[in-house]
């Protein structure tokens, strides 16, 4: 009887359900699932502070901009685990999320909390750091973000976002996107050309933002692309259409997004 109880407990920890099959980037070897859902659950359980003895729900693979990942949910902890490497892409603790508009810490304390947690997870945040306090009406959070760019300002695939409860100083979300890359070649398509292409593709007149970044096509081939954001009107009182258009920085072709 005792043996049966232990057996049930063991399987309760690793109750695995796979509910979706990723199709995006099917030809990209970086997205091949070398890690099993069971192994992903084990990896998530090894995250410092992971709940003990609770049941795991594993879904995926879920396609992302750089990786495919399993979503692993435990009681009050969720993680995305890379299907190829087993690396932890994100961790969230929903119960630590802010529940009030109280702001009891400053930017320095929020940043220290973020950096401390990243050290605990052995995540190296690189690039320029920004700190924002975001007021969502009923809750307030700090968002500390690290973004790596090259000398030409091209956003590289190394991006870290940490969210901190402004009332309790607890980190409640970490997202770390990282994929190996080669130094991107200079863009053939200029910003002006990319904006013109995006205007024609969208029918929208006003560009609000445009930046170069590294991405990967369905076969896993590295590309540099412009992300051009546009609106139909800049008047604050008008109905606004806001679109984001991707333009390949080598060919000038637009790139579809789901």
């Amino acid at each position, binding site marked *: 009887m005792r043996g049966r109880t232990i057996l049930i407990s063991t399987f309760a920890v690793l109750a695995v359900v796979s509910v979706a099959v990723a199709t995006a980037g099917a030809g990209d070897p970086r997205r091949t699932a070398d890690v099993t859902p069971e192994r992903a659950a084990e990896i998530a359980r090894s995250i410092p502070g992971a709940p003990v003895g609770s049941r795991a729900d594993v879904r995926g693979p*879920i*396609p*992302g*901009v*750089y990786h495919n*990942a399993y979503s692993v*949910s435990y009681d009050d902890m*969720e993680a*995305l685990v890379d299907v190829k490497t087993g690396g932890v*892409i*994100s961790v*969230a603790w*929903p119960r630590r*999320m*802010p*529940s009030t508009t109280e702001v009891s810490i400053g930017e320095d304390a929020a940043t220290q909390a973020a950096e401390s947690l990243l050290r605990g997870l052995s995540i190296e945040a690189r690039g320029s750091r920004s700190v924002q306090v*975001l007021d*969502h*009406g*009923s*809750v307030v*959070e700090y*968002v500390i973000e690290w973004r790596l760019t090259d000398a030409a300002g091209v956003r590289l695939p190394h*991006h870290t*976002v940490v*969210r901190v409860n402004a009332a309790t100083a607890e980190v*409640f*979300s970490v*997202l770390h*996107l990282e994929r190996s890359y080669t130094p991107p070649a200079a863009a053939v398509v200029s910003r002006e050309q990319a904006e013109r292409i995006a205007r024609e593709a*969208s*029918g*929208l007149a006003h560009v*609000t933002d445009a930046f170069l*970044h590294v*991405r990967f096509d369905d076969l896993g081939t590295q590309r540099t692309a412009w*992300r051009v*954001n546009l*609106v*139909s*009107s800049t008047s*604050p*009182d*008008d*109905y*606004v*259409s*806001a*679109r*984001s258009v991707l333009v390949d920085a080598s060919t000038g072709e637009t790139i579809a*997004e*789901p």
Partner: protein
Amino acid sequence: MRRSAAVGMLALILAIGTSASSSVNAAQLNPPLADVFSFDYPDPWPGFFLTYGAGDKARANLKDTGYTAFNNRNKSAGTAMTWAKDDAVWAFFGHARPGGVLFYHGDGTSYSELLANSDMTVIKSGVAKVSLSSYTWNDLHDLRLMVFAGCNTAKDGKPGSLDDGNLSRVAFIRKGVDSTIAFQGLVHWPVINGWGDAFFARLRMGDTVNQAAQMAVSMMIYSYGWEGGFDSWWTIGGTLKIKPAGYGS
């Protein structure tokens, strides 16, 4: 089955079964109703914006949460607000501005607006206007959640203009809606399609409105490489959940 036919049958069954009182404006059906409104706005005004994908994904998640859910394409503001009286969840994905959201009717020419607070009767550009403030507390207090997924929906309309007021505040404070979510900035297509899925999937999993909004932003960065403006989310009553399925209080 189309929304009107399906709900009509349910309401008839309810009326026969309960001899429903005529003093109550809104009907509570079992399972509770959820109406999503999505659009295929044409060029040139106010610009192409296709939100069917967001609506389809929101509807699928609401159905899996236990609601009788519909994604209603290209309906008028008047229809949307008439149906809101029977709804537990009401969601809009489309063009917006401070104090108002725009409904396109799918015929290439006609539109209507839902405005927060306007008591004015002026009609401009032939666009029919529906005022959220003209509905009674009895009409809308059964709503557990209203979603205004469009640009700048969390902002107040220009004082003294037709758009004067704030959609979320009118819904929550004056009409008894339990929770609302809107946006303080621009929200971009096509990221809105991913957000419509991620936000309602999180609600289906049992998150509060605030938790779902938070997790959906992280999922947008994971999926698209940026948040698409959805980190400007703004809620009232965000500690509420819509699972298990039910009407508001």
